[in-house]
C-alpha cells in the first residue's frame, strides 16, 4: 500500500486504541501491536516501538484530565513506579534477546489472564475504607468523587502490589506495552483500590514505565517515525475523546469492554505466534 494509505489506516486504528485506552487504563498498546502486526503485516519490532509511543501519548494526554478531576493518586503511582521502572529496564534488556514468536505468545497469555480476570470478576467488594499499616505509613489513602461527592478509600497489600508492578514493568519493557492491564488488576484486586482510581492512576503510571524502555528502543531502531507518527496522532485524538467519556461511564460497563477487547486480541496473538505469522 502507499504511504498515504498506510498512514490513514494506522491513524484510524490508533484512534480506536487511544479511545479504549483512556477508558480502561490501558495504554492502547494492547490494541496497537496486534493491529499493526496482524492487520498490516508490520514487523513486531516496529510495532512494539510504535506501541511504546502510543502508550506515552495516551498517558500524558489523558493524565492531565484525570489528575485534575481528582481520581488518580500521585503517591501510590509514584511509589509503585519504582518497581515498574526497574522492571521495565530488565524487560527492555531481555527484549532484544527473545524471539518474535515467543514474544507474541507471552503477550497473548498475559492478555488472556487479564481478560478472564476482568470478565469473571465477582461483584465489587466495595473498596475498604481503611488502609493497612504500611499503606498508612506511606499515606496512600485518599478520596475520589462518587456522584460528585468525595468518597474515602484505604489501601492494602502493598508488598504484593509492588511485586506485581515489577512484573508489569518487565512485560512493558519486553513487549512495548504499558502493562496498564496488569497495573489496574494489581491495584484493583491486590491492593483494593477503587476501580476508577486504579484505571486513572494506571494511566498516569504507564507513561513513566514506557519512558524507561523508550531509550533502549530508540537506539535499537524500533521506533520508526513513519509508523510511529500516525500512531501517536491517532492515539492522542482517541484518548482525548475517551477522557470525556470516562467520568460519566459505569464501572461495570468499563470492565466488560476491557475484558472483551483484550480476550479477542489475546487469542489472535497466540494463534499467530504459534502459527508463526507474527
Amino acid at each position: 500500500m502507499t504511504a498515504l494509505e498506510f498512514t490513514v489506516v494506522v491513524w484510524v486504528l490508533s484512534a480506536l486504541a487511544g479511545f479504549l485506552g483512556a477508558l480502561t487504563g490501558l495504554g492502547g498498546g494492547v490494541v496497537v501491536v496486534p493491529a499493526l502486526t496482524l492487520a498490516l503485516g508490520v514487523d513486531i519490532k516496529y510495532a512494539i516501538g510504535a506501541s511504546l509511543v502510543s502508550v506515552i501519548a495516551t498517558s500524558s494526554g489523558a493524565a492531565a484530565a484525570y489528575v485534575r478531576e481528582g481520581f488518580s493518586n500521585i503517591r501510590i503511582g509514584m511509589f509503585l513506579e519504582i518497581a515498574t521502572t526497574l522492571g521495565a529496564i530488565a524487560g527492555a534488556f531481555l527484549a532484544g534477546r527473545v524471539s518474535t514468536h515467543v514474544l507474541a505468545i507471552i503477550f497473548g497469555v498475559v492478555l488472556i489472564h487479564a481478560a478472564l480476570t476482568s470478565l469473571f470478576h465477582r461483584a465489587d467488594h466495595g473498596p475498604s475504607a481503611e488502609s493497612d499499616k504500611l499503606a498508612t505509613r506511606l499515606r496512600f489513602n485518599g478520596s475520589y468523587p462518587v456522584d460528585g461527592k468525595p468518597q474515602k478509600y484505604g489501601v492494602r497489600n502493598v508488598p504484593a502490589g509492588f511485586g506485581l508492578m515489577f512484573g508489569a514493568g518487565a512485560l512493558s519493557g519486553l513487549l512495548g506495552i504499558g502493562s496498564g492491564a496488569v497495573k489496574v488488576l494489581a491495584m484493583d484486586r491486590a491492593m483494593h483500590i477503587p476501580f476508577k482510581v486504579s484505571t486513572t492512576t494506571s494511566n498516569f503510571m504507564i507513561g513513566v514505565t514506557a519512558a524507561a524502555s523508550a531509550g533502549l528502543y530508540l537506539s535499537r531502531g524500533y521506533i520508526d517515525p513513519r509508523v510511529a507518527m500516525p500512531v501517536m496522532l491517532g492515539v492522542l485524538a482517541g484518548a482525548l475523546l475517551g477522557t470525556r467519556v470516562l467520568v460519566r461511564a459505569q464501572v461495570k460497563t468499563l470492565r466488560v469492554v476491557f475484558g472483551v477487547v483484550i480476550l479477542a486480541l489475546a487469542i489472535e496473538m497466540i494463534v499467530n505466534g504459534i502459527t508463526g505469522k507474527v
Partner: protein
Amino acid sequence: MRMNDKRLEIIIGQLLRTGVLLSAAIVFGGGVLYLVRYHAARLSFRSFQVGGPEIRTVPGIAHAAAHLTSQGLMQAGLVLLILTPVARVAMAVAGFALERDRLYTVVSLIVLVILAFSLVRAI
C-alpha cells in the same frame, strides 16, 4: 507560593498538556512534510531493518530536524513526547520538595534517577 497536592497536580497536568501539544505539533508538521513528498511511495514494514543514526541517536535526530527533513522532524517530536513523563516526574520531585514532603521527594527522586539511567544508556 504555597504548594499543596491540588496545586501540584494542576501544574503537572498543565505541563503534560503543553508538552504533548508541542510534540504533536512538531510530529504533525513533519508528517505533513513527509506525506506531501512521499504519499505515493510503496511501503512495506514487513522486515525489520535497523535505521541510521538520524532516527536512532539524539544527536542524529537533532541534526536531521535542524535540516528540516521530514523524518528528522517527526522523530524529534517523538523524542519530545518521550520526555514528557520524565519531566512530569522531575516536577513531582520539585513539588513534593516544596510541600516539604520528604518521603515522597525521595521516592520520586529515585524514579527520576532510574529514568535518567535508562535514557542515558541509550545515547
